[in-house]
């Protein structure tokens, strides 16, 4: 694998729910280490698109490849891609019956075959980086939303993924907790992680994104650098969206 081929590539991806077409031919290339922020109105297909990348949704047409592996119906390939792509959900989805530490060590041990001790060391190290090592033995239900989401990020990182997908990671959080989660994501970006982030946190987008993707009605309407996107959005729909979200 050369360093120049894309980490994630979607070409003409289509997806429908019954008669309703959610994705109408989406194409996107994400280079290694690139940070892409996806935004767009509700129902535009943002979640569906990133959920297709790790096969939580099955695409019906088009090609998706991750690090050179094409996503097909073959369970082996699906699992290979899921191992290498971490995901952070809006609702955290931590495992409530396991401690924070167990949440982090489960997949490395069961999927990567890592030794329990090594997995624990790695987990503690990751909890340090998201700055909650003291919560290791608590259960998710005992943590605040912001802490839970940071655990969720650490849990995904424990699999040493090559890329990370974030689906509105801060939308379910109280305002005062948003920053601690964004800080963890900024730090992660600083380490060169490939990231696709669905978010409406435009400050984060400006600070971190290499590229902003604007979606509407199942299509990518605009792809631009943050500077271009915020100063001179080309499409009318993006202009409207920006004026709504930036509140003037």
């Amino acid at each position, binding site marked *: 694998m050369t360093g120049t081929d894309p980490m994630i590539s979607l070409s003409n991806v289509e997806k429908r729910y019954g008669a309703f077409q959610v994705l109408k031919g989406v194409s996107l290339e994400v280079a290694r280490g690139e940070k892409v922020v996806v935004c767009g109105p509700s129902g535009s297909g943002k979640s569906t698109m990133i959920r297709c990348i*790790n096969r*939580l949704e099955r695409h019906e047409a088009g090609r998706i490849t991750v690090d050179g592996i094409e996503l097909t119906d073959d*369970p082996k390939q699906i*699992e290979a891609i*899921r*191992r290498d*792509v*971490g*995901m952070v*959900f809006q*609702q955290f*989805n*931590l*495992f*409530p*019956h396991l*401690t924070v530490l167990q949440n982090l060590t*489960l*997949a490395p041990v*069961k*999927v*990567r075959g890592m030794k329990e001790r090594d997995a624990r060391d790695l987990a503690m190290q990751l909890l340090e980086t998201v700055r909650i090592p003291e919560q290791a033995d608590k*259960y*998710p*239900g*005992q943590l605040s939303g912001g802490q839970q989401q940071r655990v969720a990020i650490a*849990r*995904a990182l424990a*699999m040493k993924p090559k890329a990370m997908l974030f689906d509105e990671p801060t939308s379910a959080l109280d305002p005062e907790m948003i920053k601690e989660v964004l800080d963890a994501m900024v730090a992660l970006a600083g380490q060169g992680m490939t990231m696709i982030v669905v978010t409406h946190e435009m400050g984060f987008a400006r600070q971190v994104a290499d590229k902003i993707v604007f979606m509407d009605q199942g299509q990518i309407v605009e792809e631009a650098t943050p500077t271009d996107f915020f100063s001179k959005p080309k499409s009318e729909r993006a202009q409207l969206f920006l004026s709504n979200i930036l509140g003037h």
Partner: protein
Amino acid sequence: MTAKLRILLPQLLVLAIVVGLGAYLIHNTLDNLARQGVATGFAYLDREAAFEIGEKLIPYTSADSYGRALLVGLANTLEVGVLGCILATILGLIVGVARMSRNWLIRHIAALYIQAIRNVPLLLQLFVWWDLFRVSAPPPRQAWQIMPGFFLSNRGLTIPLPSFEGGFHWDIPHLAGFNFAGGHIVTPEFAALLIGLVIYTAAFIAEIVRAGIEGVSKGQTEAALALGLKPRQALFLIVLPQARRIILPPLITDYQALIKNSSLAVAIGFPELMAITNTTLNNTGQAIEAISLMMIIYLGLSLITSALLNWYNARLALKGMAR
């Protein structure tokens, strides 16, 4: 004060009527028994039973007492109850998971099983199994071999047993004359009762399991899959441990039902608690004593079952699953 009285008075009245009625019935019964010359009390338990019992887990001969016969019946009830609950849980888990399979055929076979079994009276099902084992099964010489060592004939089902005599080996049943020797023979009555109860109860447990799995948020499975766990691992490591809390309370009811339903064995001749009680009261005429004793024992078994599972549930809750 008057308001309190107005609430209390009807209740006291009802209580008085119930107690009065009960006292009247008891008095009447004792009176009748005395007139028929039947001695009341539990002295009969020490008398010689003088009837044989076909299957027993504890030593017993017809020279033993009615009390011992009752214990033999209780042991048989416990055997069927414990084995039945374990096997029904395993089968119910399998069917419940199959009911939610992505495979159309598996999903629909499981649904058909659940629907059909739950809607046919258990007694009828027991008769079908009993007929299959006792009447329809061939004589030992033409026994059906299901798996090596497992022979089904009208003498019952043979099962290989592990043996430690002269080093570990399997004691494999084999035909010797007109019957099988070696291993263990499960009588047609026991097999029919156990299999009937397990298949019937498992259909109910399957529905509980399904509801339990559905009660765990979809995000849990997605998070597990997104980490690279296989669907089976997601089910066993993430979904089922959480579903357990939802499954456990209704499971208690099904276990209790299985134990109570085991009394239907009286119809196919397996000597459990109900059948022994039946014989005892026919022979001694001590209907009141025998039946109250049986009721107390069944009540006790129900309470013990419930206490055990509640204790297990509380232990789970302690382990931080309180959310």
